[in-house]
């Protein structure tokens, strides 16, 4: 599936919930199901500091694709992290760079991306893109990066 197809699939999944409480109940479910990070990965190097909740993001490149792992101390943010990882993890840098992550907006969860709301999610989306750009450059130069 392409990044776009996964985004459409997520939008489809959420479309069954009319009530906001139900949408968020599903997010909480996804958050609870997210595989926790190894405690040693929850370090300052991986921390994306938000105003209200903390988010950690780890990126590792294997062959042509980047594997992302992440977690947050707030379960709703964890749910959003789970969705993001589902879309971007295991993709090539080029795929990530070429695709707009519009599904968050489409789901009506955009309030979590506003810079003033600052829960680390906007910073996480930026960080994902930065990793993609960095790995893309390195690929062209033949180097490595310690994510």
């Amino acid at each position, binding site marked *: 599936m392409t990044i776009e197809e996964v985004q459409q699939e997520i939008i489809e999944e959420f479309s069954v919930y009319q*009530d*906001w*409480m139900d949408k*968020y*109940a599903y997010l*909480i479910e996804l958050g609870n199901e997210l595989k926790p990070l190894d405690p040693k990965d929850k370090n300052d190097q991986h921390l994306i500091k938000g*105003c*209200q*909740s*903390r988010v950690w993001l780890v990126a590792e490149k294997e062959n042509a694709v980047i594997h992302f792992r992440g977690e947050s*101390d*707030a*379960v*709703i*943010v964890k749910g959003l992290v789970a969705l993001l990882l589902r879309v971007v993890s295991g993709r090539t840098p080029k795929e990530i760079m070429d695709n707009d992550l519009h599904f968050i907006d489409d789901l009506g969860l955009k309030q979590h991306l506003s810079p003033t709301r600052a*829960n680390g999610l906007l910073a996480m989306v930026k960080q994902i893109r930065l990793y993609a750009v960095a790995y893309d450059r390195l690929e062209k130069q033949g180097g490595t990066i310690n994510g």
Partner: protein
Amino acid sequence: MKYDIQKMRSYFPVLKQEVYGRPLIYFDNAASTQKPVQVLMAQERLQNDYYGNIHRAAHYMADKATGDFETARDEVKNFINAENREEIIFTKGTTESINLVAASFGEQFLTPGSEIIVSEMEHHSNLVPWQINALRKGAKIVKLPISESGELQTGLLPELISSKTKLIAVAHVSNVLGTVNPVAQIIETAHKRDVPVFVDGAQAVPHIQVDVQSLDADFYAFSAHKMYGSNGVGVLYGKRKWLEQMPPYQGGGEMISEVSFEKTTFSEIPYKFEAGTPNITGVIAFSEAIKLLRETGIDNIAAWEQELLRYATEQLKAIDGLRIYGEAPHKSGVISFNIAGIHPFDLGTMLDKAGVAVRTGHHCADPLMNFYNIPGTVRASFALYNTKEEIDNFIKALKKVAQMLA
């Protein structure tokens, strides 16, 4: 007491709406209150009928606006019982009031080695301006610590005050804990040692009776937008003897007496501190907000909000794993809490979806969050238009979302 809550709510049509398909419950009043129709109409009246710049031109529109602007100053003076109308300075908010004093008082009175005592429960806006100006002048900030119950350890004050102490800055009411601090007692202690006191009254003026003369406060600051007025309007009260000694904070129009390219002499107070065109609309509409508070009676409002506080506290305490931060015997209608094992951001987000507007986060009081070693709290804060039914629905919603998040 007969408190006509239905009449009160009728002044705030904004409250009659649904958010996310549920009736709005607005419990974020410590951040900003809603505005009544009286204030909205005053804003509109000025804009439609007689808008003009104040204190400058000799024409009908400007004269009328100037008159109403100065009437607002009298309203404020009477409301907090200041001795002179010249002691009321309009600013754009409490934050600007604090920055004004920090910069101007600091310029005049701080020297290398000076000390400013600031309490541990302050909003960042009553800490950072002092830090900035202390740094500028080589002065030092000294902490007045709090206790686990969220009360100032005022007993330590006599030891903390030294010959180097130039000022004490303290909140009248904590924006996180709701604690009503014993500022009269603090001021008395400070004055015995000839130390002036700055009081951040942003969370106090809408909720409790404030009399700056009986408090004997040297400076007292608050914001219109937390007391049913417009945003962008604040007040700085300062004793004449201090304001007259302090240099201007900003230069510009209105604050001058005579200007040549070589030298400028400044206006008298309060105009010396009111450079530039102020928020004319907001200040004039502020009169209406004060009128509402005055006519309702601040004691009646306080009694109503105390009853809401008591009612909500009792029900919150019955929830498993819930901890309230700030359990001082003397509190205003602010409740900060957490539920064990749940992040405050998650609680706040879910309450929002249930139609309840609360504040979550560190409330611009990081030192206080560090004291309790927490990332933040959920804060519910009440105003004169809130009801027990709203609290019932809030508790119901809270129990439901806590279950979802557990």
